[in-house]
């Protein structure tokens, strides 16, 4: 099998490729190698022993009957190795395939790092292919539209300035009926933290803002929400290969905190945004660490429980399993905190295996779900591995503290008919916490 046998129609890829020539491809590739990539790519490419040990790591590989073209090294060999071997002299049609591999058949989950004795980061190589495709203008339609939205509005869903503020007022109003006196303080200078979300929350999942406000209110936090662009922590530009925009988004996000003089940013249950903040975006701006600490909801909830700030009325009794999102577990080591919070909320946790930093990706991450409907089948069928994992637990509820994971797992649960209910930690806390009568 090779990518040539499974091309999928996508307007963005087709439009981009229609404008390419072999010359332009070669020029762009040489520019990439000369100006952008360095020792990392060189060492990774030369040192890979082609041992194939990484194959089993990848859910795409195991879910596709061990098809080698889905193995991490198989994907590298169809993309970067080919480009390096041919000095970038490949056809526009080749680029279509490479883009499809890099954007839709790799979640940049880095599970394969745990399998490679040499320490090769295939996710980095795939990211570099995406960077190259971005430079060629060959990107899947939906993720590119999201990147456009980022550039035009500083959020990923074309949410206009006023719509954002209006949703906050609306949720504040709604929540006040249940929690009298509840406030969503706006632009409060010097607060302990500002709470940041991703744009789908004001757009489709306002309930999550409501829940967050309820939790902050009950826990008595010194918090605020910004009225200004920068409130959206998400970053599809990091995944489309548009690193300049990634930097611009993160600058806005950090400077919003710096201007509001908050001590930290607490972010909702999202994985990729976390990666963008602590790992990728900060580097592009020249920051070694993040300039403003960004606290993931998992850490934040753990803090609230440790300080006894959340009182619960009971715990969930049904069997509950935990999905470890790559970007916050393999990406940031929050597995113990996640378990601590989950055990506060549930009496009967059934672990899935492999778990913690060895967990399989949801197959939606790395911007794959953002490539939209054309590629849905690939990622759902490409994650039979996850479906089997979930089924084996016998759990009725699965905690997934990440928006992308939710999207991905929802599709998997539906497709494989697993009958499992997905929950954010925030959902459970809100459900279980003491509320005014």
């Amino acid at each position, binding site marked *: 099998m090779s990518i040539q046998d499974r091309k999928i129609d996508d307007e963005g890829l087709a439009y981009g490729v229609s404008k390419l020539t072999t010359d332009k491809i070669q020029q762009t590739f040489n520019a990439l190698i000369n100006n952008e990539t360095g020792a990392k790519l060189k060492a990774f490419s030369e040192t890979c022993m082609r041992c194939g040990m990484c194959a089993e790591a990848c859910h795409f590989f195991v879910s596709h009957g061990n098809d080698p073209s889905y193995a991490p090294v198989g994907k590298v060999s169809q993309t970067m190795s080919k480009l390096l071997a041919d000095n970038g002299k490949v056809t526009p049609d080749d680029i279509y395939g490479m883009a499809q591999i890099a954007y839709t058949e790799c979640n940049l989950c880095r599970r394969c790092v745990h399998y490679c004795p040499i320490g090769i*980061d295939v996710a980095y190589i795939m990211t570099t292919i995406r960077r190259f495709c971005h430079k060629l203008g060959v990107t899947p339609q939906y993720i590119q539209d999201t990147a456009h939205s980022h550039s035009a509005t500083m959020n990923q869903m074309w949410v206009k300035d006023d719509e954002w503020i209006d949703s906050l007022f609306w949720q504040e109003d709604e929540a006040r009926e249940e929690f009298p006196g509840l406030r969503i303080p706006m632009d409060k200078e010097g607060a302990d933290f500002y709470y940041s979300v991703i744009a789908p929350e004001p757009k489709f999942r306002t309930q999550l803002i409501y829940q967050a406000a309820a939790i902050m209110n009950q826990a008595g936090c010194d918090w605020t929400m910004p009225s200004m662009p920068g409130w959206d922590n998400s970053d599809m530009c990091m995944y489309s290969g548009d690193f300049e925009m990634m930097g611009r988004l993160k600058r806005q996000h950090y400077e919003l905190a710096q201007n509001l003089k908050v001590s930290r940013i607490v972010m909702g249950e999202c994985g990729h945004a976390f990666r963008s903040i602590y790992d990728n975006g900060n580097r592009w701006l020249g920051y*070694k660490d993040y300039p403003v600490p960004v606290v993931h909801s998992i850490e934040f909830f753990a803090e609230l429980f440790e300080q006894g700030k959340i009182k619960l009325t009971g715990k969930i009794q049904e069997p509950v399993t935990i999905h470890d999102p790559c970007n916050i577990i393999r990406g940031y080591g929050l597995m113990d905190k996640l378990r601590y919070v989950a055990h506060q909320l549930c009496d009967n946790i059934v672990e899935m295996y492999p778990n913690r930093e060895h967990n399989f990706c949801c197959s939606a991450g790395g911007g794959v779900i953002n490539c939209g409907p054309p590629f849905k089948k690939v990622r759902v069928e490409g994650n039979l591995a996850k479906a089997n994992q979930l089924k084996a637990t016998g759990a009725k509820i699965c905690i997934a503290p990440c928006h992308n994971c939710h999207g991905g797992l929802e599709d998997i649960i539906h497709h494989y008919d697993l009958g499992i209910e997905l929950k954010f930690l925030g959902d459970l806390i809100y459900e279980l916490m003491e509320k005014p009568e």
Partner: protein
Amino acid sequence: MNSLYNFAVGPLAWAAFIILAVTAVWRLWSMYNLAKQKDASSVAYMSWQFSLRSIVNWLIPYNSLGWKTNPVLTAVTFIFHICFVVLVIFVTPHQILLENAFGITYPTLSSEAADVLTLITIACCCYFVYRRVTNVTVRYVTRSNDWISLGLVAAPLVTALLGSWGVGGEIMPLLHVLTAEALIVAIPFTRLAHILFALFTRAYIGSEFGGVRHCKDW
């Protein structure tokens, strides 16, 4: 024949080692400079603690997910590398060469033991070949340079063994020396470059996982 052999273990060997030293240093140095110049945002995270942590954990057989998932390959890989290094250092003829050149002496392997180790190492190479051909994934990503590297490694082993069994008369020791020298010179320019770089790629990814991602990489 004798003078050819003397030339091969004398000036030619010196030349091979010097070429290796120069090219290896040059490759490492240019890689380091390239990293400093273009990967500053990666180099900044290099840490001794996390580098060593990663290296040590990967040196333990069956400790990492990768080793666990590929049990046979893991065994073969460890045996191959250990035997190869032991052979290179501890076979008597090598020690004698070192003694002649630098006056270094140390205990060495008996020729029977050396033969057994060589056989084992060749067997490992055979497994690598077998796997490259039969494992669908490996076959899918194998290119000519993978075969060249494997050939370069296998050749001195085979010639050493044949030589020790007296096959081919005087030509075998000569071939052994020449193939070994080819191997030495090829290190920086083939897949064998992993000898130079693997430690650093491991250290790098270990540092990233330890320092940035607060997570183990094995």
